[in-house]
């Protein structure tokens, strides 16, 4: 479980996060949704320690991440996996080398053991036979799956996923969504997904936090989001004509 208490962050005079508090549950896919520029990515970067918070606390389990030094954080970070928007695969490494990289750096597994584990992970994400390809030879969906494979290589407790469906076709998007859900349940991870893709939200979200102007203004699940009466949330969820028609039919 990840718990946020009063997270604040400013860049100069621009206060991006204004006392964000919430908790993300274990074994569930927790979504943070909101329009672009509302502070989702900054909050995500704060949670993984890429950006330091100005005030507040982030707890991984019972451990206060914000008050840890570099070496203490390093221990926590070995339990964190992250899938970036663009996958962030290492260009100079093949699919196999990308997945084995965290194993090489943080475990004492032999080459045989690493190869075996890599095979298992590749099978889980549906990339059998692609281990020797380089990122430049992969499609967008394959890059995301490789990114996910690398993220779960060390069996993390916490998984962060940033815009998993950006740039993907609808079929591949649903496949990635289902993969995130499946891996979350399989490894009993606390998964936090940053997204503004409503299809993803409806497909796999267990809990949803809606962010507006640096604050969570609504929290709920995928059923309640369609009937919520929050005007900002409604503007976001039913922004398209298609969603408005669905809402009317839902009523």
């Amino acid at each position, binding site marked *: 479980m990840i718990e946020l208490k009063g997270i604040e962050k400013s860049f100069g005079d621009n206060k991006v996060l204004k006392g964000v508090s919430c908790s993300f549950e274990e074994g569930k896919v927790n979504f943070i949704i909101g329009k672009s520029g509302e502070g989702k990515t900054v909050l995500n970067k704060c949670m*993984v320690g*890429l950006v330091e918070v100005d005030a507040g606390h982030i707890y991984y389990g019972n451990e206060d991440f914000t008050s840890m030094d570099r070496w203490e954080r*390093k221990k926590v970070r*070995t339990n964190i996996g992250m899938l*970036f928007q*663009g996958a962030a*695969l290492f*260009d100079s490494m093949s699919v196999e080398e990308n997945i084995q990289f965290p194993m090489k750096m943080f475990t004492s597994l032999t080459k045989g053991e690493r190869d075996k584990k890599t095979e298992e992970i590749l099978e889980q994400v549906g990339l059998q036979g692609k281990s020797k390809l380089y990122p430049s030879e992969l499609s967008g969906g394959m890059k995301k799956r490789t990114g996910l494979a690398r993220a779960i290589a060390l069996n993390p407790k916490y998984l962060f996923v940033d815009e998993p469906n950006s740039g993907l076709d609808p079929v591949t998007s649903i496949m990635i969504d289902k993969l995130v859900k499946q891996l979350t349940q399989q490894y009993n991870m606390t998964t936090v997904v940053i997204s503004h893709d409503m299809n993803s939200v409806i497909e796999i979200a267990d809990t949803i936090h809606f962010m507006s102007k640096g604050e969570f203004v609504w929290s709920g699940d995928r059923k309640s989001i369609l009937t919520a009466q929050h005007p900002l949330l409604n503007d976001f969820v039913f922004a398209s004509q298609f969603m408005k028609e669905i809402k009317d039919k839902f009523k």
Partner: protein
Amino acid sequence: MPIFSSVGKYSILMGRVFSRPEKFRVYPQLIIREMDKIGLQSVGIVSLLVLFMGAVVAIQTASNIESGWIPRWTIGYTTRQSIILEFSSTVVCLIISGKVGSNIASEIGTMRISDQIDALDIMGINSASYLILPKIIAAVFIIPFLVLLAMFVGVAGGASIAILSGNVSFADFEYGAQYDFRIWDVAYSVIKTLFFAFIMTSVSSYHGYNTHGGALEVGQSSTRAVVYSIVIILVADFLLTQLLLL
């Protein structure tokens, strides 16, 4: 003042680069790969460059000797001194800065804008040390060898042209090339190179590591890396010459 801010950021980055790495075992392989990229892949351009520099120095010296009182072996002596003291170290390092510096800055800059550096940090890896330290160690180790090669090729190039063009006999050039030879001159050149190698890799890495934005900014970082490396190498050349030769 932006310059003080940059010096501060550079110092902090170097502090991270030289802090304890995560896993020593992976570094030898990275260092060897960088030695290949920085050193071996520069052998061709360095050899070509100093070959012609040596030839030009020899021709210019020959064309400037008008007085009969100046012996012809001066051509060998001047070529050797020019190549060893300045051309092999400073000019070669300036050229390598252009090639290697832009490569380092664009490689690290691209990693920065495509979140690869963030990915390393999130894994708990000291990205500065993992990416930059092997480049610095490789350059400091391999570039002096390039400079030694440059000394040999430069003097050989000068000798070839001077002799083939009939400006000096082989015996005269050989006499001049050996006249008043001091090993300290070679050492001075190699010592300078160690500093230059550190400057070109660390400054280029700094610019790449602090890239923000997109492809345009990677190009700008790459240009800045080369310009700053060259300027700092020239200032260091002046200071080191003062310290070591006077």
